[in-house]
């Protein structure tokens, strides 16, 4: 299946770009992600738990980043193996453009499943992939922008993790 969409993120292009290349951000944003490590250069390793229709499985896989046009676009390609549940593969072409109010993140996602996932879950896979992509990019937007209330609340030691890594990311620059 293929789907395309875009989101307006209230952040400058450089911030969005750096977030896209962060394993911490990816971990935060990939629905069901348990572990994520690696770097854009070497690729990321991930463990994701997901339930697709009747099939629930732990997918171990890799994500590679390619076709990098600095600050403008990149391609994320991932493949996860779920043992007896089969496998899922996907890719997303992501591009950024400046727009009033922030950065427009546009994406074209392609997803494929195989094995038991295809045999038992094919009816629902399109909807599932759309939901995953929506969740990923929506979470990504939230993470990059940071929850609105957090910007007010600077004293809390229960500061949301999302804000924490963003500050870290910004401070690393």
């Amino acid at each position: 299946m293929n789907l395309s969409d875009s989101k307006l993120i209230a952040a400058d292009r450089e911030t969005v770009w750096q977030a896209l290349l962060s394993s911490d951000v990816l971990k935060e944003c990939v629905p069901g992600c348990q572990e994520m490590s690696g770097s854009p250069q070497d690729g990321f390793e991930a463990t994701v738990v997901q339930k697709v229709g009747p099939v629930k499985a732990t997918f171990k896989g890799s994500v590679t980043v390619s076709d990098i046009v600095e600050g403008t676009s990149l391609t994320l390609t991932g493949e996860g193996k779920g043992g007896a549940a089969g496998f899922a593969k996907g890719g997303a072409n992501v591009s950024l453009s400046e727009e009033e109010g922030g950065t427009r993140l546009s994406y074209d996602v392609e997803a494929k499943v195989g094995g038991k996932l295809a045999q038992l879950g094919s009816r629902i896979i399109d909807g599932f992939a759309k939901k995953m992509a929506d969740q990923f990019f929506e979470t990504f937007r939230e993470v990059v922008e940071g929850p609105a209330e957090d910007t007010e609340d600077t004293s809390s030691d229960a500061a949301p993790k999302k804000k924490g890594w963003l500050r870290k990311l910004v401070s690393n620059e």
Partner: protein
Amino acid sequence: MPKDSGIGASSKRREDVRFLTGNGNYTDDINIYGQTHVYFLRSDVAHGRIKNIDTSAAEAMPGVVRIFTGADFEGIGSIPCGWQITDRHGQPMQEPAHPVLAIGKVRHVGDPIAAVVAESLAEARDAAEALNVDIEELPAVVDMKAAVKDGATKVHDDLTSNLCYDWGFVEDNKGAVDEAIKSAAHVTTLELVNNRLVANPMEPRVAVGDYNRSNDEHTLYTTSQNPHVIRLLMGAFVLGIPEHKLRVVAPDVGGGFGTKIFHYAEEAFCTFAAKAVNRPVKWTASRSEAFMSDAHGRDHVTKIELALDADNNFTAVRTETYANMGAYLSTFAPSVPTWLHGTLMAGNYKTPLVYVNVKAVFTNTVPVDAYRGAGRPEATYQLERVIDKAARELGVDPIKLRRQNFITEFPYATPVAVEYDTGDYPATMDKLEEIADLSGFEARRKASEAKGKLRGLGVNCYIEACGIAPSNLVGQLGARAGLYDAATVRVNATGSISVMVGAHSHGQGHETAFPQVVAEMLGIDESMIDIVHGDSSKIPFGMGTYGSRSIAVCGSAMVRATEKIINKAKKIASHLLEASEADIELKNGQFTVAGTDKSVAWGDVTLAAYVPHNYPLEDIEPGLEETAFYDPSNFTYPSGAYACEVEVDPDTGKVTIERFSAADDFGNVINPMIVTGQVHGGIGQGIGQALLENCSYDENGQLLSASYMDYAMPRASDVPFFTVDHSCQTPCTHNPLGVKGCGEAGAIGSPPAVVNAVVDALQSGGHKNVTHIDMPCSPSRVWAAMNG
């Protein structure tokens, strides 16, 4: 008055007592001391190169006995194909190797990569998850027409292309057919798909391998329709086990529908592994596994052209078909789209010229082979659909057009190499018009329309070739073995009888019907006779059950053996009665000296055959057991006419079958109740194909319909009460019972009736541009057809 026993009686199915009370003995009920369980790790990609299989982690898992991979089967034979096709140019078909476990490449989702033998099935499954398999996924070929294009990815690297064969039949007719079509007054053309099906017998496949090291004997218990065929194929061609060291048992089998004819890798694996680990090895398929490892059925894409002269006489038929073989050649796969299909393209009609072209194609899908009807449903569907379309184009009544073109003189040699011995097609059509109340259709249509529904009537004929098969003929056609059958009639001392038959019963009611024949011949009670089937150690030989052959071929062998019994028993009776053998008559179980009241009973003669005090040893050998082999001299040709009435909901496209009537000519009928049941089941499966079932792959070769959530099996609510009649009987002229076979007819005759009816309903609703809908006629397809 109906008979209450013997030939023609509706004796109750004796086997149903055990089936209905949970006392059947199926392969999965067999558990042997010390048994291990095997789990097959199957490919989840359609096409890939195996780069590495690391078994070390899995071997360390609890309960693992041994892990096998393709490397363990290097040097072991390939799963053989039983039929070789010669193509249009005189060349043999391309025949790839089919290893027991994948070697080098995987070629379809479900292809077995490794087998884990463990103490329990759960441990075997867990260990299989720990197998580390590195497969480089390759592009998959799924679409048949794309598969035969230049440059297409090859399923088998060592073949020249994905084309198994390009077959023309009858090649010598091609020029004349082309000419007839060019000069015809009218040509109707139809392109259609015969949808891929999964047989789905209620019982999934099971195999239990056992090895006795004290005498080097192998035993395989398996869900097979033909244990002797499995013994021959597996023993001689795969594992190299001589037949006296190999016993194959197929106990109660819960439905086959063709998919249990073939020799499968799992059978060879369990037999091989039982010796390798020196313990019994058991495999039971899960339903998911069945979807991706049982041979599939149908999957043809066809263009058919029907030429007519100015008087609406059929002058020629030309077809071009792409037939999917899947990734490997299953046992009888090459014969299905050729000899079981092309030879039926004359149908019930005196079309003088027929040319059939079939391109069989390898794809990265599960192998495709015979499924109830096997080739004949594909032939019937395209022919009866194109005739219906022609009638509509010409504005003539579809029944009248058929009647006008019926073959009426027999024997009739078709232009496609077979000779129909008997038949009476106008009689079955007359019968159909009567039982289907076709004269009342218009009133029923009005009633449906008053409810806001569209009602359609579909009528068609069918002919099939059964009683498979004359061995000399099939040898010329490429069969690598003759297809005769055998029976041994063993009369015991007290007169009871065991008949060892090569046919296997897996739902057909042989245990009831076969004794009816022997009882009729001997004049004794049916309950004194049992058949023994499904065990190669008990039965002399047999080619099994498929192609509606059991009573026509094996039943004929049983008749011949029983005739020998009668001859010998008469000799013994003549001794007991001190009369001339020529004067002895057998009637109602009594041997009588003609014209006298001197007689001896059946039991007296049988006792005298085994434990006599006074016996003419120099003239007659003691004992009463005879074996006969039977080879039919021709196929049998059951035929019939079917009518289906549907209602279509114009808002949703949902099709409901309102009436279904079948008038069949099966020749003589042994047990009318069983025949009726066979027809019911066949029509049910045909309706499944026409409205519901579809095995679907995506463009990457992923199997998308591998559970009952996605593969729609017909349920009771999807079928109507059937009206079935088999009183039109033109007995077969060349077998002793005059029988033709009835097992496949319903599945052959019903799909075109349903689709003809759906198209008729839509036409009646003003959808004049709808001339065809591919099966299954699901609500979405029908709705889309109506809404352009």
